[in-house]
């Protein structure tokens, strides 16, 4: 095997390797006829990534004839070849990758400015074939967006967040952090963002769905996509089926295949659903401002995103979506503790949520129009007196 990468492509190759290091500890390298495949998989086999560089990516691409060659090596060792990404562009003129079959060594030679030559002889192991089986074209749902949009979206989640949930309807997408049941309820913070379909280059939703997958691995792809400026395509089906994230151009195809949480685990947070009586929801276009009916809907439904609304047990989920103000990207923070209180309050009776929760809610949705403010204050008062009555009524 004898390949040469020149100019700016050296940086692309380096970024690909750094991106793969976010998935697994080992780099699988396989020179194929259709290009050089660099792959990685995580230890639990729930995340897989493949970067396929077509022969046109290289200024020279020669692969071993005869039997297929495959190897794997510690990804840290390959990363060491491409240290200091920022200076790569300025210093490296070309990168030569050669295989020394006899000595079981893969040699990376960087030809740099001022005649400096950096040679790295890395040892490798023979490996089994690593290929995930997936068919993204057959997925029911597909979104494509500029990487900037997704980068800006995930920026709102803390770096420590493990999993993210993505829910789609015909018109919108919601991103929210996934909170385990076991997580301390009083400490959990929910963050939710809503994007409308017109933010995307392509938005095809076959069935309303909600999937949950690992955010760290998504970030790994986004870092690469952002540096190349190529759009990211997201293909997915129902929970439990893997989500495929792709970045493609004429010389490169990248696929990240991530497992998603299956149905059962998605539902466990929201088993109060069926106990609630649901009133007709307010219209989807919040700007008609039927705030009273909105409040009624809030009282009786959980103020979480649509994921629970889309649970298979509520098949008529079309219009039970909790509405959002019609701002394209909107962020709400809910005190989980308060939400819990609300859940308890409304479990058996239709008591309105407690005052603290409501005032937090008003703060985020109330338009500044003074007239409307007066109305809401009146409404608030009405609700308050109702709750007192109810409390008295329900005391044994």
């Amino acid at each position, binding site marked *: 095997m004898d390949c040469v990468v020149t100019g700016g492509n050296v940086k692309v190759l380096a970024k690909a390797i750094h991106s793969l290091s976010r998935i697994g500890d080992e780099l699988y390298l396989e020179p194929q006829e259709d290009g050089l495949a660099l792959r990685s998989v995580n230890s639990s086999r729930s995340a897989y990534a493949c970067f396929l560089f077509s022969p046109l990516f290289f200024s020279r691409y020669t692969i071993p004839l005869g039997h297929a060659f495959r190897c794997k090596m510690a990804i840290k060792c390959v990363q060491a070849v491409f240290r200091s990404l920022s200076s790569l562009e300025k210093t490296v003129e070309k990168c030569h990758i050669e295989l020394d079959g006899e000595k079981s060594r893969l040699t990376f030679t960087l030809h740099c400015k001022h005649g*400096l*030559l950096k040679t790295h002889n890395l040892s490798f192991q023979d490996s089994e074939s690593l290929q995930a089986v997936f068919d993204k074209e057959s997925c029911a749902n597909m979104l494509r967006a500029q990487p900037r949009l997704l980068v800006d979206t995930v920026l709102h989640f803390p770096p420590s967040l493990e999993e993210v949930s993505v829910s789609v309807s015909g018109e919108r997408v919601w991103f929210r952090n996934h909170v385990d049941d076991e997580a301390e309820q009083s400490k959990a913070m929910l963050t939710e963002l809503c994007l409308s379909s017109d933010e995307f280059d392509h938005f095809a939703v076959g069935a309303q769905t909600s999937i949950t997958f690992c955010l760290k691995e998504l970030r790994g792809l986004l870092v690469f996509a952002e540096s190349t400026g190529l759009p990211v395509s997201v293909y997915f089906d129902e929970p439990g089926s893997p989500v495929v994230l792709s970045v493609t151009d004429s010389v490169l195809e990248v696929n990240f295949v991530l497992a998603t949480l299956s149905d059962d685990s998605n539902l466990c947070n929201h088993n109060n659903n069926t106990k609630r009586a649901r009133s007709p929801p307010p219209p989807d276009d919040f700007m008609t401002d039927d705030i009273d009916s909105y409040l009624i809907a809030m009282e009786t439904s959980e103020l979480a995103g649509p994921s629970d609304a889309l649970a298979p047990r509520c098949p008529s989920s079309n219009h039970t979506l909790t509405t959002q103000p019609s701002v394209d990207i909107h962020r709400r923070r809910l005190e989980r503790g308060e939400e819990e209180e609300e859940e308890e309050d409304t479990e058996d009776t239709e008591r309105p949520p407690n005052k603290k929760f409501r005032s937090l809610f008003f703060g985020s949705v109330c338009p500044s129009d003074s007239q409307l403010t007066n109305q809401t204050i009146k409404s608030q008062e009405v609700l308050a007196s109702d709750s007192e009555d109810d409390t008295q009524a329900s005391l044994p």
Partner: protein
Amino acid sequence: MPLSTQSQTGGDNYVLVASLDNVRNLSNILKAITFKDHAIFNATPNGLKVTVEDSKCLQANAFIQVNLPGVYHQRGLMATALRMCYNGYGYPLTLFLEEGGVVTVCKINTQEPEEPIDFEFCSTNVTNKVILQSESLKEAFSELDMTSEVLQITMSPSQPYFRLSTFGNSGNAHYDYPKDSDMMELFQCTKTQTNRYKMSLLKPSTKALALSCKVSVRTDSRGFLSLQYLVRNDDGQICFVEYYCCPDEEVEEE
């Protein structure tokens, strides 16, 4: 930085008085050799020499030369001035630091100095010598595989001319500088030599490398290494830092 020395008799009884308009440069140079707690200060009429040693295998020296009399240097704003005074054997080293009218006095206890090792490195014994612009070496040193116990230096009149090699967990790596590189200011290699030095001993030299603009690399017939760094500070004054290192005894031929 202008360093002036004056020996005064009577009055203060100082054996040495050294003054500096801006102590920052001295501070930077000393940081480049501070890999041990103790240093030997040697004051000569030509200037100050500070020596630090490690396990009898490595020696670093910093030279701060005396400024010629009659040359006046403008003192910068907010610069800290230093006056270093020493009364002789048994007395502490007294430092007067002045900044913005505030004077700080430090007295550092002195100890019995050990004789610095004489590596017996002389120019007549030098087999190979190169002078490189520091910029390119800085890059190589920052990327060196630290899992390698040794740094191998090959110098030769033929390919690969000047090579730094490491042997780490992932495999080996070589950094080659051709003799006609524009980073190579001087190339005088008479014989092919390959020597290994403990990485842990050479690692501190990267500080001196970071400050320098040029570095000379010399090996003698025994394989001893001399690294000399030319440091040009903000005022345009020149100082030198040098490192001497013994070759690693356990040499495994690759």
